[in-house]
């Protein structure tokens, strides 16, 4: 602390000393000062915006003037839940989110097991980085890559053709969305599952073998139950991220691939009906809230 000695001669030193003593004795004062900035930012902008949004779901828009009508009613919610189109879109969104989650779980489990149990420490570190990097390599770039791969003249059909297999026509379809979403969110599933499997002590598996269990039995009775919280934790990401997306459906989906997000986006940007968009956006919000409650029951939060 050399500079402490140097600054000791300056006149401001005593005042600074006193001030720092005050802060040290009254910890709450320091805490309050530190919190003021982030809290003000979040309360005045983010939380205020969310509250306004939730309230506006109960308002409506005058169809003629497109002015906001601030009278409370449940019409938007009625439309969301009774109109067949919106129900189909909600079911499609939730269905694909579920399919993506299951796919990622199936792909991630053996991979995570390999990482945690078979890979050498160096290889494990390498795989860890390999899984993490795509997560940060531009989302749009990766979706776009698949648009090129799945195109009629793309790399997938070229490969299939070389292998003597029939080509596929899955560009701009729900199949394309399923593949792309599974690809994009896969690292979010691998990481928590890996963390869960890594925590299984070797002795558990040895005990299972000693008791005469064959490979499959050990997997089913020891590994899977212990990896399960990790799977649930990963599924929160894969499910929630798919549920709220609208970029991938726009870029790789087809004519009948609209997601909740697309409807919401169209209502904010083009139709200028924010109240309806807000009401429809409560669907993924409610689904996620329900999902989180169930996940918490299943012990997913200890695995995060």
């Amino acid at each position, binding site marked *: 602390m050399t500079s402490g000695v140097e600054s000791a001669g300056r006149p401001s030193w005593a005042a600074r000393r006193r001030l720092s003593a005050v802060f040290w004795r009254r910890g709450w004062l320091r805490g309050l000062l530190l919190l003021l900035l982030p809290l003000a930012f979040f309360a005045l902008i983010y939380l205020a915006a969310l509250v306004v*949004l939730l309230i506006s779901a109960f308002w409506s828009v005058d169809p003629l003037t497109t002015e906001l009508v601030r009278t409370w009613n449940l019409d938007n919610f009625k439309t969301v839940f009774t109109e067949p189109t919106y129900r189909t879109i909600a079911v499609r969104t939730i269905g694909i989110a579920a399919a993506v989650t299951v796919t990622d779980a199936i792909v991630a489990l053996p991979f995570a097991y390999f990482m945690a149990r078979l890979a050498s420490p160096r290889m494990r570190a390498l795989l860890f*980085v390999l899984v993490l990097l795509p997560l940060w390599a531009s989302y749009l*770039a990766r979706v776009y890559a698949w648009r090129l791969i799945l195109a009629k003249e793309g790399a997938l059909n070229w490969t299939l053709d070389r292998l003597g297999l029939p080509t596929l026509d899955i560009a701009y379809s729900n199949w394309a969305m399923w593949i792309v979403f599974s690809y994009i969110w896969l690292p979010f599933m691998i990481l928590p599952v890996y963390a869960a499997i890594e925590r299984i002590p070797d002795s558990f598996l040895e005990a299972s073998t000693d008791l005469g269990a064959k490979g499959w039995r050990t997997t089913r009775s020891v590994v899977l139950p212990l990896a399960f919280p990790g799977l649930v934790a990963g599924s929160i990401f894969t499910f929630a991220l798919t549920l*709220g997306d609208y970029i991938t459906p726009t870029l790789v989906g087809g004519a009948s691939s609209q997601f909740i997000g697309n409807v919401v986006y169209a209502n904010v*940007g083009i139709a200028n009906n924010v109240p309806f968009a*807000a009401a429809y956006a409560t669907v993924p919000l409610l689904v996620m809230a329900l999902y989180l409650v169930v996940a918490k029951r299943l012990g997913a939060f200890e695995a995060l």
Partner: protein
Amino acid sequence: METRATRISLWAWMLLVVLFLYAPIAIIVVYAFNESNIQSWPIEGFTTKWFASTWHNQEVRDALLLSLKAALAATAIAVVLGTAGAFAVSRFKFFGRETISFVFILPLALPGIITGMALNSYFVTVGSPFTFGLRTIIVGHATFCVVVIYNNVIARIRRTSPSLLEASQDLGADGWQTFRFVTFPVISTALVSGALLAFALSFDEVIVTTFTAGAQNTLPLWIFGKIRLGQQLPQVNVVVAVIIALTIIPVYLAQRLSRESGILRRE
């Protein structure tokens, strides 16, 4: 424990998954050198001409500049707010402490459309200081960048022993000196790695940006628009390949920085 057959199939599975993760990234980089305007596989010839034409595209330059400005400013705001929040929550006990972490995480946990839509209608309603443009993009990005810094710093603080601060004070340092010579060196690498991640997150963001950018184009918005309309695809290929290379570097650095925790290595 595992039989030979199991080992071999797990090895094969691992290789397949790595291939699955990296083949698209490799393919997109190859397309950047595609001679033809038509995006079919395999590419028709090797050229670097699109790099030059992209570099001279004024739209791309403007979008890149806007993205960099927004990411830098959002990261700066997030560093200040996130660090302050992390210190308050980790050092002091007060009513509602748990709620604060929850509030910080919300912008990342809620679907992007909700954050984007909420901010959009809020900015429209409030008006004046929030005219759509760079300022609203920065505010929107800062909301979800705060949590990245906050998480990184709070994790580092929790691993640091409070006795270090007491020792500093016992040796006669005042609050500022303790921060400058003890606290800051301890959190600095966590702060840098958090800032790099926040920057990458902001630079890449599409959904919240579409709702807060107004008529402006950030680089991801430019890419999104061009892909959707199928225009200038050779240049999109170049931009996308360069972005992949550029985002991978800060994340790799962040990863390395968070491993070496400076003077307070506990493991």
